[in-house]
């Protein structure tokens, strides 16, 4: 019954997308007509124009310091919030609702607004940037963390519950270790989103890569813009490959089947003598000695072959490598925190001016444009639905092809991961301008830009959640000789389904909020009003708009939570 209504709700969403698609008069013909405009535009991005090396390096380090600090801040805030928000770890319905609400609030308020607010609290400087980026990031990180926690297998946790372990103990010992790969991957994913979002740092007096990028675009310096985008792309590649390496070591055995390699020539050495001639399928029947040898081996292996009893693992290569990584990461975080201007005095100043600043935003007001706000909210919803539908159509297959446990060939998966990463690295504004050039200013270019942009996020989320499914059942279907796509539909998808649907609704919510982008390209919508109200210092209107967006986002979030519960 619940399943039926959940399916109906999802179907309604998809039809909403189709309807919006039609209502916005999105059609392929107009697209292809003006495609040469886009080609012409893109040709103006060449040759690339890089900033001088020294300047570039300092830009990178400055940006990286703030972005790393902001991401760490978001992780630190998100872990407890997510544990309160996840169905299986929350202490109660009240706490769950409150923390979900808080997470959604962080998401509903764009970084720009956080930046404007944080500027009034902390003044100019890196600290403000860290807070603005970090707090806004909680909206995504907290949500994905909560999802990851809900996704964990309940068995081990029940086992610890049965030992009388407390809630927190159960969580640290059974839930977090299971969710760890996902937590790390999400943090790194957010890191590269924040790298690009660092344009907002321009609002707080910090020059960084993102800001240099947006400045380059607004001054029509596309050669510089694409050069910086390329630098960002490389940084994202680094983040992605680190996250990939971590996923691989942490997830181990994700791939259903390792392709048999041709056997290497044996180096048997000592045991050669046991197989005279080496051709006959010699059973170890060659005598008592053979069996004895075998059993002796068993004994020595069973007892570890070593006499030292240790209660901590040996310092083998793996442990050394892991520890080195850990130390390096901690060092980077500390250096970043220092570089980004974290200090007690700014914190104190922040504490003093927090509430007065909050006062500027209250009570909410409409600035005399209440009707227009509602109309714009409607437009925004339309664009978001259409954009998400486009994203769905593009990202589902791409994300699926990028999951290593689905396609089997690591090379194919890596190729599609790269495609997704490339899409994510294209500056959104450039994407938007391309569509403006193709379709003109307005909702259509907004929806298209959102749709294509969705591939970067949704594709990755889909690929990740497919890779995280329990490999066991998939192995079982592989063992029946099922083809890859059959294994996918028979086992991987049913298991990942709640997560995929969750991500889809999350994308809708992201697109709804990306309305600021739409405002930029003249699509109208609530995002434009929000930016404009902030620009002309009408903070009560900002509050109203944030509340309106919040209501919509909460609605989607509620739908997502419910759907996940039904399909859990």
């Amino acid at each position, binding site marked *: 019954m619940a399943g039926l209504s959940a399916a109906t709700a999802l179907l309604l969403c998809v039809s909403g997308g189709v309807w919006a698609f039609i209502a916005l008069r999105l059609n392929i013909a107009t697209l292809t007509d003006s495609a040469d405009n886009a080609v012409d535009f893109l040709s103006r991005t060449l040759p690339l124009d890089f900033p001088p090396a020294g300047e570039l390096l300092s830009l990178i380090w400055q940006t990286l310091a703030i972005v790393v600090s902001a991401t760490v801040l978001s992780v630190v805030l998100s872990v407890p919030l997510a544990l309160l928000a996840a169905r299986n770890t929350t202490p109660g319905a009240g706490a769950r609702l409150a923390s979900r609400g808080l997470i959604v609030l962080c998401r509903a308020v764009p970084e720009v607004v956080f930046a404007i607010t944080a500027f009034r609290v902390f003044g100019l400087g890196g600290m403000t940037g860290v807070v603005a980026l970090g707090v806004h990031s909680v909206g995504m990180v907290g949500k994905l963390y909560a999802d990851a926690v809900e996704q964990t297998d309940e068995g081990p946790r029940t086992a610890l519950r*049965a030992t009388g*372990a407390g809630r*927190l*103990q159960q969580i*640290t*010992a059974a839930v977090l270790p*299971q969710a760890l790969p996902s937590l790390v991957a999400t943090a790194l994913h957010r890191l590269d989103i924040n790298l690009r979002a660092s344009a907002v740092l321009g609002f707080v007096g910090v020059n960084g890569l993102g800001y240099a990028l947006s400045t380059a675009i607004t001054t029509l310096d596309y050669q510089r813009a694409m050069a910086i985008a390329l630098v960002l792309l490389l940084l994202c590649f680094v983040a992605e490959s680190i996250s990939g390496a971590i996923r691989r070591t942490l997830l181990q*055995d994700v791939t259903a089947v390792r392709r048999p390699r041709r056997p290497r020539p044996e180096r048997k050495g000592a045991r050669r003598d046991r197989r005279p001639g080496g051709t006959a399928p010699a059973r170890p029947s060659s005598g008592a000695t053979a069996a004895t040898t075998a059993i002796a081996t068993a004994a020595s292996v069973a007892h570890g072959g070593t006499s030292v009893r240790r209660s901590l*693992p040996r310092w083998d290569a793996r442990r050394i490598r892991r520890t080195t990584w850990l130390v390096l990461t901690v060092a980077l975080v500390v250096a970043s925190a220092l570089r980004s201007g974290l200090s007690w005095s700014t914190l104190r100043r922040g504490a003093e001016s927090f509430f007065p600043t909050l006062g500027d935003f209250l009570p909410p007001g409409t600035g005399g444009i209440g009707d227009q706000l509602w109309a714009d909210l409607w437009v925004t919803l339309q664009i978001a639905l259409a954009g998400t539908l486009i994203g769905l159509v593009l990202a589902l297959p791409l994300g699926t092809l990028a999951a290593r446990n689905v396609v089997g060939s690591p090379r194919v998966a890596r190729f599609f991961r790269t495609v997704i990463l490339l899409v994510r690295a294209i500056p959104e504004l450039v994407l938007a301008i391309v569509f403006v050039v193709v379709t003109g200013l307005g909702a259509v270019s907004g929806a298209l830009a959102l749709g294509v942009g969705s591939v970067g996020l949704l594709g990755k989320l889909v690929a990740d959640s497919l890779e995280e499914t329990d490999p066991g059942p998939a192995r079982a279907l592989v063992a029946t000789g099922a083809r890859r796509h059959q294994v996918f539909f028979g086992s991987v998808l049913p298991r990942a389904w709640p997560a995929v649907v969750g991500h889809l609704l999350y994308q809708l919510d992201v697109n709804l909020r990306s309305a600021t982008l739409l405002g930029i390209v003249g699509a109208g919508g609530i995002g434009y009003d929000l930016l404009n109200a902030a620009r002309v210092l009408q903070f009560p209107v900002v509050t109203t708009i944030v509340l309106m967006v919040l209501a919509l986002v909460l609605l989607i979030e509620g739908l997502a939570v419910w759907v996940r519960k039904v399909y859990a």
Partner: protein
Amino acid sequence: MTAPAPTATAATATATATTGSPVTAGEPVIRLDGLTKRFGTGADSLLAVDDVSFEVRPGEVVALLGLSGSGKSTLLSLLDGLQAPTSGDGTVLGTALARADRSELRALRRRIGFVFQQFHLVGRLSVLENVCTGALGSLRGPRLGLLSYPRAVRERALDGLEQVGLAAHAFQRADTLSGGQQQRVAVARALMQEPGLLLADEPVASLDPESSAQVMRLLARVAQERELTVLCSLHQVDLALSWAHRIIGLRAGRVVMDVATEGIDRATVMRLYEEVAAGSAEGVAAAVAVGSAVPPRPAAAPGSVPAPAAASAAFTKGD
């Protein structure tokens, strides 16, 4: 791999285990009164545990037998407060299941060791850390990583691993262990609690005869040394006969047999598994009659675990 640890003495054909552990006459450790668990509602609902009432005295070693799906796992999880009963009540170690609040349940669970049928290890953690988590109930605060456990706990966990023959695998990731190895880790984890009551759900299902016997011997020894009460679902009737004081048989969620192992013969117990259609209800009923009075354990009637090397002869009881 994993030849049994040297602590187990397999040389003697029938290692006595629970020998001489008299059931003390104190308050029952478990007292169930019409305990019932129903899954689902309406026509499709299923009575997994149906009006179960029995008592278990301190020090008793009880085997829970029954067909697949007869409600053994569900009953055990009710006893640990992991699921709430639909109706009826039970008192375990002095705690009333249906009335206990969260902290009382936690305190109760701290005193009960539980071995899950599906092991439920944390796959990504090392074997040793998995065993250490068994001590969480007696530690304060959350733990993250092997290093966060006190050295004493780690040492004790290593001892436990040695006892189940897995010391060499201490630092292997739990999800790369073989089925039987995982099961033994689960046993070691439960024993880390130093429990007063052990609930074990088919703790030797995935084990070869030698490892099974080794684990059962271990449980029997611990039971005797620490005056532990044990309730253990099993599929091996011979093991149950030789090892337990008492057998409780379930069928479709109901207790249909409750007998002392002393003096009962294998055939009688096997009737528990007989087809219903075969009209053998009376047989089972007869068996139930045998066990209708909870047997006060004679001090000299211990179960013993057959050593693996023994041929079928070992399946006869006695030591």
